[in-house]
């Protein structure tokens, strides 16, 4: 299966704290994504990257920011956490090209609770 890793898996933090969710993949994929999902609900794309130094906002407005300095690493940062940020955050990556099917793979997710 996929080699994509997220840390921390579970986190409880206080309002106003800064938090960075880490995501790394070892598959050499150019494309990486962050989705936000409430339990059992739809996935919402909040950020994506098509390669190093490329980042874009997704469909769902988010107060988070991302960076892509290395191919394998795509961290997401919340500068000032709020209770409305409580959710699961899923990192994903996809392979290149139509010939290989452009399959998307997901990490195990990071559950964030802001109190």
């Amino acid at each position, binding site marked *: 299966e996929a080699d994509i890793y997220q840390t921390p898996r579970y986190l409880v933090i206080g309002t106003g704290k800064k938090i960075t969710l880490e995501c790394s993949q070892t598959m050499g994929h150019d494309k990486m994504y962050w989705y936000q999902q409430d339990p*059992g609900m739809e996935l919402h794309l909040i950020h994506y990257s098509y390669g190093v130094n490329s980042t874009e906002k997704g469909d769902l407005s988010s107060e988070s920011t991302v960076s892509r300095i290395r191919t394998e690493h795509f961290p997401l940062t919340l500068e000032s956490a709020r209770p409305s940020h409580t959710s699961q955050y899923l990192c994903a990556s996809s392979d290149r090209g139509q010939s290989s099917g452009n*399959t998307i793979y997901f990490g195990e997710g990071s559950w964030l609770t802001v109190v």
Partner: protein
Amino acid sequence: GIQVEQSPPDLILQEGANSTLRCNFSDSVNNLQWFHQNPWGQLINLFYIPSGTKQNGRLSATTVATERYSLLYISSSQTTDSGVYFCAVTPPYNFNKFYFGSGTKLNVKP
């Protein structure tokens, strides 16, 4: 963008029963994937199936691209099959853009 609709939204089965989940999409696609999200939130790839039929153990999937739908079959269901099943597609004009359905929540009772 592409509209992706999954049905039924909720499904309750007795262990051992069979079921069919459906994914309809509104435009041509060059990629279709099925996922199972387990109770811990992880999305597991089940099938990459832009067309045709594939089988993996008790699970099989069929995509009829010309009619814009895909079906996921679960046979002899087990409690470990519980969770949410999602389908995702990408259009040929932007195969980096994934459109997800809203999922089918499956509860298999012992």
